């Protein structure tokens, strides 16, 4: 099979590849976005814990 012919898609390259590309982009978004958000939430919680520990240290001393 010829690759350039494959990408040419019988003249429908634009339609086929934008559709598949858009789908891929959306799918990637729903994988990458939550992973980033997960790290963000965890670091937020961690900072909260650190703050509280510091606060506790102060009141103890």
């Amino acid at each position, binding site marked *: 099979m010829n690759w350039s012919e494959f990408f040419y*898609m019988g003249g429908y390259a634009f339609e086929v590849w934008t559709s598949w590309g858009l789908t891929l982009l959306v799918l990637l*978004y729903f994988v990458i976005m939550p992973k980033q958000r997960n790290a963000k939430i965890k670091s937020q*919680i961690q900072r909260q814990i650190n703050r509280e520990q510091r606060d506790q240290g102060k009141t103890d001393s």
Partner: protein
Amino acid sequence: MNPITIIWNFLSNTYHRLGSPREFYTISRYTTPVFGALFLVLSLIGTYFGLFVAPADYQQGDSFRILFVHVPVAWMSLFVYVVMATAGAIGLIWRMKMAFVVTICSAPIGAAFTALALMTGSIWGKPIWGTYWVWDARLTSELILLFLYFGIMAVYYAFEDRKTAEKATALLSVVGVVIVPIIHYSVEWWSSLHQGVTVFAEGGPKMPPEMLLPLAFMAFGFMFFYGYALFLSMQNKVLDNERKSGWVRALVNNKEQQS
């Protein structure tokens, strides 16, 4: 013990475990990668058969290959809506915390699937109908569905109190699911008034197996993708909602010490 009892016990046990945010988080850490892997395998097989193996359509040429993303995504847009509304009803009736999380996390995914179905549909429409948009019954219902999703998301973000927001969102999704069939029939009747629109011919009445096979793979692949994306987003929601509870703090703290 007969098998039905065993299955029932298993189901009710799973239900109760999934009903608790903490148990859900533990279970989902194992199931989420499985969903992701299943999605990858199925969609790669589907892509291979769809793009390389299936022969070009005798009428539409290679443009019909949009079908392998358009149709699964359009199916999913409805499927997600039904899951979302069912979860909403479960949450309202049995006051199950996790059901609301399913509803809220499904909405953006469903909206994205709907938007994708609209975009791929109109891109496909250009070579077939000669225009990006026609007031075809299916495209129009899909557009209305997109606005229903927007409404549901807007309601969730409008409330400050999370619990109120969750219940309001669930109620609206249940109301929506009652009206969706009516919208569907009304739009179908309406578009029959607008004569002269070429109706989608998806490769004739009977789909040849070399088209059906990749379509089935893609459809199941997208279903697992929904599960994968839903669980990822639900994990975040659970962490966010339960950020004050002991188990979330222990979880975050342990991670920190390990790294």
